[in-house]
Structure formats: structure tokens, C-alpha cells
């Protein structure tokens, strides 16, 4: 007979064997797991310690940070010339107009502060009133952008679109692209999934046409041929032409991203909405799109990353965007020969934004994907 009072008392867990936990075990498993792995580790360590110190020395330790002209950099050619970036910073970020009018720099600075103040809470998980933040970003913010950057009212001097440049122009092109391409893309995606053959054919042709052509050809077309397409007297400047080209191009890609979301909605949702007696537009607006758009946010962000990178192509048609501004600055008389620094700085800004967006979209994807874990 067993004793009624005795209870099952587990002996405490023993710690895992020292060979399977801790940094030593981790290093053995992940760096020296096999002969080939050990050789790889040694190779990578060798490459790392040969080249990374060289780069760090050039970019940071021996670099020139001070001064206001090239004499500092010319005296010390061992290191990077960040002096050049420092002197031309306002020009590279905000373009020639704001670069040469330091008293006006508050305008783009305010716009960017407002933008990030709206965007950062929007990207966080637990922010309340996200819908209103997003709407503020989509409607009042562009108005603010126009009022502050273009000027002309409230006593702010005019800086018309041809005077925009640097990162400001890159931002404006990308923002306009996404702002107008989103509604257009949603309509096209709905059209592509429509039951009506004519509408479907129109949308498919439109989408495939723009997707089949490189953006640079479209920008050439926009800058050379767009004025021909409109009645005499209708004139756009170069920046607006590029914006139109980018919007048309981007709408096709947005449409494909939204279509992905639409096709992920189960058929039952459509049928339930129909059973409730909702017509096509109410069904779409209240039942289908809210779900579909949420699913397609990661792919929309991905197309947006591609667009953000592609705005650099406007430098080929002569607009002074971030890339072209950095290049022009590094080829100017005063700073000729410091191409490397210009490209690296512009590249770093592009990289920061694109990498940030891609991390955001990956996180979102993982969060939305919870029900499909195997």
C-alpha cells in the first residue's frame, strides 16, 4: 500500500550540461560546427580584420570633419572629406533655393518635423486614433507641405516646384507618387477583378502597359511628350511632369499589390455581404476593402520602397533630386573630386529610409501571418 500523505515531489531540474549552453557552446555550434564551417569562420574573420579597420580609418578616424573649404581635405587625403558634406548639407537636403537662403530653411525643417511626428506614432503598435493620424498624413499634411514649401501665401516667399531639390524633392516625388497612386491603384485592382469583361480588359491593359516599361522611358515620355498630349496653353513644369509620370507608373504597381490583398479575401465574405443586401460599392467599401487593404499593406510598402529608390531616376532628366544634388555638389568647382563622399552620403540616406521601411513591412507581415504558422 502507498502512503496516502506522500505526494509526488519532483526533484529540481538539473542545469543543462555546460557543453550545450553559454557563449562557448554557441561559438562552437555556430562558428566551428564542422571543418568547413571553421574554415569559413577563419576566412571571414581574416577578411573582416583586413578591410573593416581600413574603412573605419578612412571614414571616421582620419576623416576631415571641420573647416569650411577644401584646403582642409586637400591637406589630408588619407581620410574622407565630410567637411564637404557639412558645408553643402542644406543644399543636398533641401535644394539650391533653401541652400542659398538660410533664413528660409525653417520651412522644410518644419515640414519634416511634422511628417515624422505623424509617421512615427503611426508605425507603432499601440497608438490610439491611428485612422485619424493616417488621414491627417494623407490630406492636411500635403496642404501644409504646399503652403510652407511652395509659399506664396501668409507672407512666405514663393519657391516654385522647379526650385525644389535635394532630399526635399525626392520626398515630394515619392509622396505625390504614393498619394495619387493609391486611390488610382485601388480602382484599377477592383477593375481587374471585376466581372465585366470590358472594364477588366481596360484595367489589365493599363496595368501591364506601365509595368512592362522601364521608369526612365516613362520619364522621358513625360518630359518630352506630355506637353503634346494636352491642349495648347496647358503647361506643366518639369517637376510636375515627372510627378505625373511617376504617379501613372506607380498606380500600376499599387494595383497589383492591392489585387494580392483582394484575392486573399475568402469568398464567404463576398457572399455574406451580398446576403445582407449590400450593393457592390457598399460591399466593397465596408466589407472587402478594409480587410484587403490591411493584408496588402506589406506589399504596398514594398512597392513604395521601390518607388522611393526609383525617384533617383529623375536625375537623368535633369532634376536636382538627392542623388543629382550630391553629385552636382561633388563636381562643383570648390569640391571637385570628392565623388565618393557625395555618393556615400546620398546612398546612406536612401538606405536608412528603405531599410527602415523594409523592416517595418517585414514585421507587419509576420504579425498578419499569425494564423498561417505550421
Amino acid at each position, binding site marked *: 500500500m502507498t502512503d496516502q500523505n506522500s505526494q509526488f515531489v519532483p526533484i529540481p531540474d538539473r542545469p543543462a550540461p555546460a557543453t550545450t549552453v553559454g557563449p562557448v557552446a554557441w561559438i562552437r555550434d555556430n562558428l566551428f560546427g564542422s571543418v568547413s564551417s571553421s574554415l569559413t569562420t577563419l576566412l571571414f574573420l581574416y577578411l573582416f580584420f583586413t578591410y573593416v579597420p581600413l574603412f573605419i580609418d578612412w571614414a571616421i578616424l582620419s576623416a576631415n570633419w571641420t573647416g569650411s573649404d577644401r584646403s582642409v581635405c586637400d591637406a589630408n587625403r588619407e581620410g574622407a572629406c565630410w567637411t564637404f558634406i557639412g558645408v553643402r548639407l542644406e543644399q543636398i537636403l533641401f535644394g539650391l533655393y533653401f541652400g542659398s537662403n538660410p533664413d528660409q530653411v525653417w520651412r522644410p525643417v518644419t515640414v519634416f518635423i511634422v511628417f515624422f511626428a505623424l509617421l512615427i506614432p503611426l508605425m507603432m503598435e499601440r497608438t490610439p486614433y491611428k485612422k485619424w493620424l493616417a488621414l491627417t498624413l494623407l490630406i492636411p499634411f500635403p496642404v501644409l507641405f504646399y503652403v510652407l514649401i511652395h509659399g506664396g501665401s501668409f507672407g512666405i516667399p514663393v519657391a516654385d516646384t522647379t526650385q525644389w531639390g535635394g532630399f526635399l524633392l525626392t520626398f515630394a516625388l515619392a509622396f505625390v507618387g504614393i498619394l495619387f497612386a493609391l486611390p488610382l491603384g485601388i480602382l484599377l485592382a477592383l477593375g481587374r477583378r471585376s466581372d465585366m469583361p470590358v472594364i477588366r480588359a481596360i484595367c489589365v491593359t493599363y496595368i501591364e502597359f506601365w509595368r512592362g516599361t*522601364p521608369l526612365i522611358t516613362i520619364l*522621358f515620355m513625360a518630359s518630352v511628350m506630355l506637353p503634346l498630349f494636352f491642349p495648347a496653353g496647358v503647361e506643366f513644369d518639369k517637376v510636375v511632369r515627372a510627378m505625373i509620370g511617376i504617379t501613372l507608373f506607380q498606380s500600376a504597381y499599387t494595383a497589383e499589390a492591392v489585387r494580392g490583398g483582394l484575392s486573399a479575401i475568402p469568398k464567404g465574405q463576398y457572399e455574406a455581404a451580398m446576403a445582407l443586401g449590400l450593393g457592390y460599392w457598399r460591399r466593397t467599401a465596408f466589407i472587402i476593402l478594409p480587410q484587403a487593404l490591411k493584408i496588402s499593406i506589406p506589399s504596398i510598402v514594398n512597392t513604395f520602397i521601390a518607388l522611393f529608390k526609383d525617384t533617383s531616376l529623375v536625375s537623368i532628366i535633369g532634376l536636382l533630386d538627392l542623388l543629382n544634388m550630391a553629385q552636382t555638389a561633388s563636381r562643383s568647382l570648390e569640391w571637385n573630386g570628392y565623388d565618393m563622399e557625395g555618393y556615400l552620403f546620398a*546612398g546612406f540616406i*536612401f538606405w536608412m529610409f528603405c531599410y527602415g521601411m523594409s523592416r517595418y513591412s517585414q514585421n507587419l507581415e509576420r504579425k498578419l501571418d499569425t494564423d498561417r504558422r505550421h
Partner: protein
Amino acid sequence: MTQNTRIPFHRDPAVRAIAAQVVALLLVIYGLYSVFENTVNNLVARGMQTGTGFFDEVAPFKIGFSPFLDFSLGETTYLEVFFIGIQNTILIAVLGIIAATLLGFFVGVVRLSPNWLASRAALGYIEMFRNTPLLLQIMFWNFAVFLPSLPAPKNSIEMGFVYLNARGIHVPTPVVEDSTGLWIWMALLMALCIGLYRFARLAKARFEETGERLPVFWINILGFLAGGYVLYFVAGSPLGWDTPELGRFNFKGGGQLPLPMFSLWFALTVYTSAFIAENVRAGIQSVSHGQTEAAHALGLSRKDTVNLVVIPQALRVIIPPTISQYLNLTKNSSLAVAVGFEEIVALWAGITLNQTGQALIIIAMTIAVYECLSLFTSAVLNWYNRRVQLTER
């Protein structure tokens, strides 16, 4: 009270659908027509003529790179310039696709390596090149790396008969010395290919009968290389080599790949390989672990598991987005205009447009070239997807 079951005319879905489509069609036609009309009016108002008349005119500019189609200043017409542009686009695309595929598969596999350092290094590579604009990369390699660091022709870097300098790469080119010999060699190569194909069939039949496997892939590769080499001498060595030699200022003889082409090829390869690497990683990870375990349970070796179970299933996921990347690479080659390599956009929509002012027809032809390439790609994709679907259970 009579029961009216008829739906009112204006609420009938079928009628509404037809009406909506007619309206949409009319709007599109009206839009296109007004664009057409405006264009014609604007052209007349500006005194511009449009047409294909300039095709037969002689192009007044020099083209530095045209390996297959002949170019001679003062004889080549604009229409021939158009074809030279297409030729160069296809050439850079093919070279880029080959290199990007090899590099992309390599990086993708390294990304999945059990070695932490290697995997992190591959991740760093992917994130760095995927998240910066391609145009910036092309300019960076061309203007900030290759142009300042490569030596002048006099001090070229020598690699066998290949010379590298700031103007580009000089390579030996084959010259046909005996054209009948060349045809004989081609015929012999063809016969060799048929022979190797028969061998592969026989090996497969033998495998199905006895279960014994031969390393068919390696035998075929080796057989082709060695056989081709031997047959070259059997046919009487029909080719000679035109090797580059340093003249007073530049190289004479051989072929030259201009530096912009090299920079473009390099940048396209690096950029696209980052995307292909991601496809490869996703494809390999999509093969569920159960497949590997089942293969091991069946007693397949590690190598056979990879070759016969994992790779075939991974390829099904890898290939479609990789084909789209090939199309992207081809479209991206149009950025050559930034460094001055003469492909279709730089040569046709750039130089020729500036020379002739025929914007309408030139842009339309450029777009048409890319639309054809894109239609071709989607045809290949559809064909592949259909084929893969058939083999699915």
C-alpha cells in the same frame, strides 16, 4: 393587387453592367482621341513633322560598341542604330542575368549556412544592395570606384591576353580563318550533343531497370568540353585569335568592352543578385522540414536529399520570382544612359531623339521593345507555371 415581379429597368444588374462598360469604353476612347487630336494640333502648331522618313538617313554620330552588327560612321542609318541599341540591351541583359544568377544562388545559399558569420555577412550584403537605388550604385561604381582607381592604358592590368584599364576591358576576339572548317566544327558539335543526349537517355533507362546511377551531369559537361576541344583540332583549328596589343595611346586589335558597360554589368549583377538571393533563401526555406526527414527515413543520403527532394521543390518557388527579376534587370539596363553605355534608351531615346527631334515615334518604338520583352517574359512564366502545376498532386 397585381404582383409585380419585374425588376425595374434601371435596377437590373445585367443592364447596369452593360451600361457601365459602354460608359467606360466611351470615356477611354474619348480620352485617347483627345490625346491624339491634341498631339496632332500641337505638332502642326509647332511646325513639327512626324513619320518614319528619318529611318533611312545616315546617323551622324559614332557608336563605340557594337560587337555583332557592323557600324561605320557615315554609312549606318538610324534604323540600323535602333537595331544596334536592341543588340546591346540584349547583350548586357544576358551577361547580367548569367552573373546575377550565379552570384545570387551563391549568396542565397550562404545566407542559409549554419555558420553564423557567413549567414550574417550574406544578410548584410543583401540588405545593403537591395536598399539603395540602382542608379546610385551604377554611378558609384563607375565614377567613384572604377574610373579613379583603374590605370591608364599604358599601365593596364594584365591577365593573360585580357587587359583592364580605365577605358574598359580589352579581350581577344575569335577570327574565322577557315569558314568551311568552322561549319565542319559546328556540325561535329551538333553530332556530339546528339550523342550525349542519347547517352543520357540510355543512362536513364538503365537506372530505371537496374537502379544504378551514373553521374550523367558531370559526364555530359566533361564530354562536351573535352569533345569540343578535340573536335576543334579535327576540324582543322578554323578560328584564329585577334589579341589586343598596346599601341602608342591605346590598344589595337581584339575587342573592347567599354568601362561604362563593365560598370553597368557589375552594378546590375550585384543589385539583382541581392534580390535573387532572397528568392533562393525563401525557396529553400519553403520546403518543409518533413520532406527532409522523410527523405532521410527512406535512406537517401544527404546529397541525394538535397538534389532529389529539396532542390526540385525549392526551384518551383524560386523560379517564377527569379524570372521577374530577369525582366527587371533587362528594364534596369536602361539606366546605362547615366554612364553612357549605348543600349536602346541611351542610343535611341537619347542621342537619336536629340538629333532628329522625332519624340513621338522614337518613344513609341522604345516602349514597344520593352513591351515585347515583357510579354515574352510573362509567356515564359505562364508556360512554366502551367508545367509546374501539371506535376503537382
